[in-house]
């Protein structure tokens, strides 16, 4: 058998724990009475709030307008009344204003059949405008505004378009289910992007633990004679990281400090492709997404289609609640996700999963001193020296840490996962980056 492609350097093999939810068909989630819609659900500037307390909003109405070059629109997921606009903490630790909407009135779209819009006749500009208008962001977790990504600067071309269907995070199965159940829509979404980018090659990268999805999409592509290929990849974390996926698929390395476009590569998540399809063909903004609810402490792990702004509590209750006391509630996957302490935390565009993990699953241990075992080095997919960088940051030698490659770190967590001393390396790198940014701003201010 031919050896499957993967990226050569670093990477780890955590238990993938997907069996609990990989066969669960996507269900519609309940809606909580109030939706809390944060105005910053993407990387970049928060959206500018367009509503005020007491306003009545409709389903899909624009709540926040893109607030800068790298920013995205925010739409109301439910019809109702704006109760207040308050600051909340998102799981990634960022404090942002959020619009609290009490559900009331009629849903204009829910449950109604929508006519498909023929998009083949639309121009590239029109398509991009649609993507921008509907507030589409990368749904793999990075939440980079998609319209910015699709706007290729002058002089650059897209050679290869890669669809990230790797889903290398353990537990998560939402992309897997989307491919199985919404395969046609996803492929249609890909075709829309093909039109925008006109790449010479389109590859869908899927890890080999989802062979059913590989076969399903392959069949669909062959049936419709589409100009794209499905590439099964070896199972290895973090294959979903942009640069590592490109290396795995094309064998080329994106130069350090450069963007993938340098190699003529653009990639997008499966979920993003689905959103693009919905935006263009169904004229629907991003107001819902598929969320995997799983973990040892969840009674019935499931994949749910949830409205943005729904609280975690609602979704967990949909899954039968907790079977035992969770040690951690995680938004996202266990490798890069964030812990939350408040079950009223809302689902955002980037929430790919909600995990309730037990003590037994997290394998916490007391932090000890670094043993210089070198596991962080051998697991690092970016080929930096985590222990050295961490020690430099720990000793306030931030500039030296930057020189040693701090900014190359993608925070995938491989090093901290492997570290036998249980040193929170990634937290250290985030802290270092924060201080570095602060210093840079101070210098610029001077």
């Amino acid at each position, binding site marked *: 058998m031919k050896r499957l492609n993967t990226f050569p350097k670093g990477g780890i093999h955590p238990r993938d724990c997907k069996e609990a939810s990989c066969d669960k068909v996507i269900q519609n989630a309940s809606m909580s009475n109030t939706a809390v819609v944060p105005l910053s659900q993407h990387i970049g500037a928060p959206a500018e709030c367009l509503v005020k307390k007491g306003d009545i909003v409709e389903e899909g109405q624009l709540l926040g307008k893109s607030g800068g070059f790298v920013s995205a629109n925010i739409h109301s997921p439910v019809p109702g009344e704006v109760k207040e606009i308050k600051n909340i903490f998102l799981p990634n630790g960022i404090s942002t204003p959020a619009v609290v909407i009490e559900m009331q009135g009629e849903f204009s779209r829910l449950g109604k059949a929508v006519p498909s819009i023929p998009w083949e006749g639309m121009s590239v500009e029109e398509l991009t405008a649609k993507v921008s208008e509907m507030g589409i962001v990368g749904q793999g977790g990075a939440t980079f505004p998609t319209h910015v990504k699709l706007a290729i600067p002058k002089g650059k071309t897209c050679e290869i378009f890669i669809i990230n269907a790797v889903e290398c995070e353990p537990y998560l199965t939402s992309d897997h289910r989307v491919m199985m159940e919404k395969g046609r829509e996803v492929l249609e979404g890909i075709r829309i992007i093909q039109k925008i980018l006109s790449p010479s090659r389109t590859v869908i990268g899927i890890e080999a633990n989802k062979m059913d999805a590989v076969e399903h999409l392959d069949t669909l592509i062959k049936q419709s004679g589409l100009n794209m290929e499905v590439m099964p990849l070896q199972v290895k974390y973090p294959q979903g990281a942009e640069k590592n996926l490109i290396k795995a698929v094309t064998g080329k390395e994106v130069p350090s400090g450069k963007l993938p476009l340098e190699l003529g590569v653009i990639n997008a998540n499966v979920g993003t492709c689905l959103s693009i399809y919905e935006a263009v063909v169904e004229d629907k903004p991003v107001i819902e997404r598929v969320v995997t609810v799983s973990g040892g402490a969840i009674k019935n792990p499931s994949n749910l289609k949830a409205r943005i702004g729904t609280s975690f509590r609602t979704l967990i209750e949909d899954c039968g609640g907790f079977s035992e006391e969770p040690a951690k509630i995680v938004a996202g996957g266990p490798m890069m996700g964030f812990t939350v302490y408040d079950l009223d935390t809302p689902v955002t565009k980037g929430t790919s999963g909600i995990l309730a993990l037990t003590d037994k699953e997290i394998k916490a241990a007391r932090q000890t*001193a670094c043993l210089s075992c070198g596991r962080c080095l051998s697991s690092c997919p970016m080929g930096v020296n985590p222990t*050295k960088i961490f*020690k*430099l940051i*720990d*000793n306030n*030698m931030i500039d030296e840490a930057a020189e040693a490659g701090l900014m190359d770190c993608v925070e995938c967590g491989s090093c901290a996962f492997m570290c036998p001393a249980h040193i929170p390396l990634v937290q250290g790198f985030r802290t270092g980056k924060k201080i570095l940014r602060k210093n840079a701003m101070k210098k610029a201010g001077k």
Partner: protein
Amino acid sequence: MSYLGIIITYVFISNVILSQFLGLCPFIGVSKNVESALGMGFAVTFVMSIASLVTWAIYHMILLPLGLIYLQTIVFILIIAALVQLVEMVVQKYSPILYKALGIYLPLITTNCAVMGIALINVNSGYNVIESFTAGFSGGLGFLLAITLMSAVRVQMETEKVPRYLKDAPIAFISGGLMAMAFMAFDKALLNNLIG
């Protein structure tokens, strides 16, 4: 003794720093980072080789025939001082970066006991001119080796949680002690077995 023997002796067995305690001041002072340690090591090697040659010549051509051995100390130190001043000026002129890195330690080569020590040892051991040069050169190499190893250890220690009062110089000495212990692997018997 063969030249190889002299080299092994002065680099490993009688390492100027780790076994003869010569040149400890710059060893502790300039070993805080690898780059300046290398610079210092090369500077010392250079000065030491030249000084060995020159002092040999002075001793055997002037002091010995004229019966002026009692002036050995004063003459040797003058020559070394002159050489060092020369090197210092040249470095200062042509490589300000190196000069800045070595800082006040370049003039300290003058009082680097290693240079003077090797010169005296050469004379006491009755080496001929090439042997003297070899001894001086390999003495410098031994210094270079020890200071480079030490600097890498110290850079590593900079990010470890060394107890406060043991930081810097004490830790350098103690590391030096452990190195000296490991260097005890090399002894005269090993040399004799190796090259007969």
